[in-house]
């Protein structure tokens, strides 16, 4: 689409004072993209690995873990990152569903729940990985 360069642009990211609502709006898009590629590819790979039989599945487990025992650190970082992305996207998604009803636009309410999506996503990620790495080991 061509734009008349003489016409002014509407104010964009650089001109606004940053607030948590801007951050979570951007995080919603970033984590959504991470899940759409990283999360989906990993899930589909896992399903295809199971369908391919025990030999290939054992290769998959080897890639995700170290010697089918403790987790290797690269896949661990990816898995923890995807877990956080999932919860962040989930909580900002719930926030969007609430905003769709017209509720929650008051400045303090909006700021509070924006911050809560991030507190919630970090807490849920820590809870899940504590269970997987500490309680179950």
């Amino acid at each position, binding site marked *: *689409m061509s734009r008349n360069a003489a016409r002014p642009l509407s104010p964009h990211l650089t001109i606004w004072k940053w607030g948590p609502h801007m951050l979570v709006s951007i995080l919603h898009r970033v984590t*959504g993209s991470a899940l*759409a590629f990283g999360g*989906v590819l990993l899930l*589909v790979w896992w399903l295809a690995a*199971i369908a391919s039989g*025990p030999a290939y599945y054992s290769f998959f487990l080897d890639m995700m873990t170290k010697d089918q025992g403790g987790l290797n650190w690269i896949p661990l970082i990816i898995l923890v990152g995807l877990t956080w992305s999932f919860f962040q996207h989930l909580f900002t998604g719930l926030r969007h569903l609430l905003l769709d009803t017209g509720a929650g636009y008051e400045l303090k309410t909006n700021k509070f729940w924006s911050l809560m999506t991030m507190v919630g996503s970090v807490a849920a990620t820590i809870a899940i990985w504590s269970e997987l790495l500490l309680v179950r080991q």
Partner: protein
Amino acid sequence: MGTGTGIGRVRGLGSAKSGALHWWHQRLTAVGNLVLMAWFVTSLVRMPSYDYKNVSEWLASPLAAVPMALLILSVLTHLRIGLQVLLEDYLHDEGTKLGAIILLNFYVIAAGALALFSILKIALGGAPA
């Protein structure tokens, strides 16, 4: 653009027809994802181990295979709409935008086909030797 009054030319076109469909499907699949991912994450955390026998027997049961297939459909529909919005927002060249949206659709269809085939093979194929 044809003849007639302004309202006559646009009637039946645009958002009065199906403009809100993407918006609605995005929210419908959001709720679907919420329910199905809650099931999936709970199942994963509660799974005693991730060895082949355990996961393949789990996925072979109807009450795991069917929600997993629905999860794939819901998630892929959701991400197809969501990423299309991102592409439309950030890609300003019409050719690049069209190409990217075609690639996105191919990605979604390929991932969906591979996932659904795998689920069906595990669920219907019996235990491989």
